[in-house]
């Protein structure tokens, strides 16, 4: 039996476990909600996570198309980039897949796991996961940078408005009231 067949066969189980492991990173009081509530509008975080890793897994076991991967990763990383995670935690979900896969292989292959072609395939698979991790990191940085852009834009548009208003008034200096933004 080849590994890819095994992965396809146990697709549901592996993605399910991966999902559970990711959700377990959330606080205990909310993990259950994020895992069990299936309504995509009531539980967008759980829904997005699930849909996203499903697509990522398809790519790992499939063609590793970088465009598709980026698209699939975008959804989950975008969520994690604004949540209460450190950078390592936010992208670390990819690596949760590794021990999980080993567990599955051990369970279903037993001793065969030491056969050379299986080992080769395994190495290949782990390399793929590493590549996904790198893309995830790129994606994470992209999201963080975008957040900073959004923030900068907000601040800039606010001060631009302020300057406009000052320029618009011809007699600002004559105002009696003192502006009170002494140490904003």
């Amino acid at each position, binding site marked *: 039996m080849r590994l890819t067949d095994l992965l396809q066969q146990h697709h549901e189980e592996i993605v399910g476990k991966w999902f559970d492991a990711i959700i377990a990173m959330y606080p*205990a*009081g*909310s*993990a*259950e*909600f994020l895992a069990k509530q*299936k*309504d*995509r*509008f*009531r539980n967008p975080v759980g829904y997005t996570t699930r849909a996203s890793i499903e697509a990522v897994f398809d790519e790992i076991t499939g063609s590793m198309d970088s465009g598709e991967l980026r698209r699939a990763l975008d959804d989950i990383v975008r969520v994690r980039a604004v949540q209460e995670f450190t950078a390592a935690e936010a992208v670390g979900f990819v690596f949760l897949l590794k021990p999980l896969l080993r567990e599955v292989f051990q369970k279903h292959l037993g001793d065969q796991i030491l056969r050379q072609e299986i080992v080769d395939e395994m190495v290949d698979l782990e390399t793929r996961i590493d590549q996904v991790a790198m893309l995830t990191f790129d994606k994470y940085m992209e999201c963080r940078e975008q957040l900073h852009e959004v923030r900068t834009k907000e601040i800039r548009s606010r001060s631009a408005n302020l300057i406009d208003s000052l320029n618009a*008034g*011809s*007699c*600002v200096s*004559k*105002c*009696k*009231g003192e502006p009170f933004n002494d140490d904003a």
Partner: protein
Amino acid sequence: MNALLALFGVAILFVIAYLGVDVLGLHSLFGIVLPYAAIFLFLIGFVVRIFQWAKSPVPFRITTTSGQQKSLNFIKSNNLESPHNTTGVIGRMALEILFFRSLFRNTKAEVKENERIVYGPDKWLWAAALAFHWSFLIVFLRHYRFFAEPVPEFILKMQAVDGLFQVGTPIVFLTGLILLASVTFLFLRRVVLPQVRYISLLADYFALFVIMAIAISGLLMRHFYKVDIVGVKELAMTLVGFKPVVPEGIGFIFYVHLFFVCVLFAYFPFSKLMHLGGVFLSPTRNLANTNRIKRHINPWNYEVKTHTYEEYEDEFRDVMREAGLPLEKES
């Protein structure tokens, strides 16, 4: 942890009843003194609490609107979700109190294969809560048969419907079973859903356990450890007549049942169970959305420091003049 502590508390209560009745034989204490004390505490506590609530004014009309307001003639308003008159408010409150309208609101959207969204019910909490409260009410009313002779017609009719299936002797009342099942469900829900477990306090479990104990002891008494029903009625009638006599040999399980009922009554006004009264008084629900039609008076409305137009013009007069804005005073 909280659940265990609460269970422990209820177990202690059971032990107290056991020691008191079976070992020490304090039948008068458990049959007469405690019921009177519990009812007394309940009545006083309930009235005091309602009085406390009523004493705090409702300064603002802060209706939570859940539907279209009444505005233009060609736009259909929703008098039950955004009431614009007393009828609407009564309707809204009735839906809330009798059918738990708000809990019913829980829907779940699912996107089907063909990209259509369908809304399915997600109504376990609603169904269980409704089953629990209604069955509890009927069970409570059914007990009136012990306090009246002859037993009023409507109680008998209710019993007849309740025992419709005619199973067992004495006949099994459906509501008793539903009560036990729903209270068990509400408990399990608290333990199983981590989200609800996280918010649950000891008091939440305690109330459920006491009610569970009442239901279990009641069912046991009716179907397994038979008690002297004539004696029970005698005690009940004499309690109501304020000439209480404790007949001999009613049976231990009855005192356990009665004791837990006393605990519930005494505990009631000091606990969240007061939502029985609170639901009627909640300002977001029992006020009509007539804010712009009728002025609502705040009894403690007080003067505040404002920035008057005069002060404003004084500060900005020069720039206002220069901008060509009309002035009240030229200087």
